[in-house]
């Protein structure tokens, strides 16, 4: 073994991770090479010095400066993942739609649908869409409320006000579409009553 190879193995020798055959070879080299043996001892001293290094004293006032520096930079707002719609809710909505569709078909029968039956289908579709829309709004409201609460919890009042204002603006934006709804309701409302009371199937019309 030459000195260069011996140097490559010094850390492994120190850490005891060297194969026994290489340990024997290296020890034999040390026996004939005082320079490498001296280097091996110095290497052990270096590692010991590093591993037992005492802590440095931090400069005066560094803690205050570091604390202040952190406070001057705002925490990034954590983007929370959008609310996950529970599977059961999706399944319920789909089930509702299927039942409504099935019921409509059963009532209408194989004949050409009457105007009343068409209205029923239309109303069911409208009701389904409205239900889905309401669900989306509810989830959005819950999400906004969650943001407001977490901001309030963090103690940032100005952000809370900002979020509340955002929510007010959101409600303002929703207003026009809500104003339309009662109109549709009024239009369809009486028809729904008529469907129940004065319903005619294709079969009865044929009769």
């Amino acid at each position, binding site marked *: 073994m030459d000195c260069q190879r011996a*140097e*490559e193995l*010094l*850390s*492994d020798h120190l850490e005891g991770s060297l194969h026994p055959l290489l340990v024997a070879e290296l020890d034999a080299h040390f026996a004939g090479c005082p320079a490498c043996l*001296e*280097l091996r001892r*110095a*290497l052990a*001293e*270096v*590692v010991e*010095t*590093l*591993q037992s*290094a*005492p*802590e*440095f*004293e*931090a*400069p005066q006032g*560094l*803690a*205050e*400066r*570091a*604390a202040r*520096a*952190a*406070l001057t*930079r705002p*925490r*990034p707002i*954590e983007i929370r993942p959008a609310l996950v719609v529970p599977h059961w809710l999706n399944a319920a909505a789909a089930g509702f739609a299927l039942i409504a569709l099935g019921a409509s078909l059963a009532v209408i029968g194989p004949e050409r649908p009457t105007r009343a039956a068409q209205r029923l289908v239309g109303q069911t579709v409208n009701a389904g869409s409205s239900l889905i829309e309401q669900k989306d709004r509810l989830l959005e409201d819950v999400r906004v409320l969650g943001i407001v609460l977490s901001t309030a*919890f*963090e*103690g*940032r009042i100005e952000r809370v006000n900002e979020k509340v204002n955002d929510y007010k603006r959101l409600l303002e934006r929703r207003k026009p579409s809500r104003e339309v709804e009662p109109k549709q309701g009024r239009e369809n409302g009486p028809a729904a009553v008529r469907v129940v009371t004065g319903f005619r199937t294709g079969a009865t019309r044929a009769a």
Partner: protein
Amino acid sequence: MITTDADLLPGCRSGDEAAWAKLVERHTRKVFGLAYRFTGRADEAEDLTQEIFVKVYQTFEKYREADGPFGAWLMAVARNHAIDHYRHGRQERVRRAEDPLLLELAPARQEHPIAGLEREERARLVHRGLRALPPELRLPLVLCDLQGLSYEEIAKSLEVPLGTVKSRINRARLELAKRLLARRHELVDGAS
């Protein structure tokens, strides 16, 4: 009454600046020590310490008690930030042989004065040598012998192969050992 991290954390979470200042004060020395060993300069270490606490403050919400002690989490954040700092090569300046900002090591307690002087001299030489090492040798050595990370952890942190880590650590240690021997030989030659 002794204040612990656990006592201060709820206050920090609710925006209590005094609690945050106390928490920073409790950990500044350790974080600065790590930063100094990474950068090798007191002024850079100060900047890095501040950056680390900004990072800790900004990622504070991610800490969960179940992850273990806060101090260990904070030091992991500090170490990762210091590694990023090194990896991006920011503020990596040309090292000067004699750095006026070299910090003195605190003397160990209950030690014979002669032994203390020898230890101090050796520590000064080793740490000066450490600062003079090129970053690719200094960093793995700091992580291994000063931070106590395993070779595997270092390889993962620095994104270099395990064999490279081992060989760089050995080379770094050899470099310091040779400096130590050279200085001793100088002293012996000077005395004779």
